[in-house]
């Protein structure tokens, strides 16, 4: 279960980091000369970084291997008695 969760989480984190990279790219390349970076931009960058770090910690805190596997329908099926 841990391996599956890790793969899904890494895909999610990669997409999220692509968004983060896009924000920093825009701020670096498309700023208007002489204009100050707005507070909301700093807050966005900081909160994105913090949430990514918290998510890594939260992911490691989950005991993935204790999650019960869903039972397959074929094993739990009991044929009707005639």
């Amino acid at each position, binding site marked *: 279960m841990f391996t599956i969760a890790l793969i899904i989480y890494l895909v999610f984190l990669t*997409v999220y980091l692509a*968004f983060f990279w*896009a924000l920093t790219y*825009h701020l670096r*390349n498309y700023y208007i000369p002489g204009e100050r970076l707005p507070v909301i931009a700093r807050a966005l960058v900081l909160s*994105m970084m913090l*949430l990514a770090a918290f998510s890594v910690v*939260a992911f490691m*805190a*989950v005991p993935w291997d204790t999650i019960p596997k869903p039972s397959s329908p074929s094993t739990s099926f009991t044929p009707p008695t005639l």
Partner: protein
Amino acid sequence: MITLRPQEETITVIRRHWINIAGPIIGCSLLALVPLVLPLTTYLPQFIGVELALPLITFLTICFWMVILAFFLVAWVDYYFDTWIITTERVLDVNQVHLFRREIAEYSIGRIQNVSVRIPTIVATLLNYGNVEVETAGEKSFDITAIPKPEQVKELLVRQSQVYQASPFGHRE
């Protein structure tokens, strides 16, 4: 980055009115409250146990907030980088279509012929925002949409156009 010509100066940078970003701010804030309002910590431990439920809820809540933040980021980039830059020589129309698409058009300020203001709704009247429609000679006309204080922008464009046409640069056109 936008580069100016030699001797060109930025007069003002115009962004859309804050009402354009208010919707995403309110929507994302309400969505962010959903995991806190839902009684997950009450019901989920009954099915999978407290030891597993609490860290799982924490992790999924953080992931949910990350998704909301990414949505807000897209809305904010669209709002903040969608600008009109009025310089002493040009009007630059920077259109941030979405996160990875950007279009920049420029219009010579000396070619501005007619500037009009349109206040579309009652909300726009109350919050003092509207559209400025600019017609130019020989170039495509353009609109500056949903900006605060459109009357002042109109005055600025007309005045700057007259200043430019009276200058030696304007006579050359």
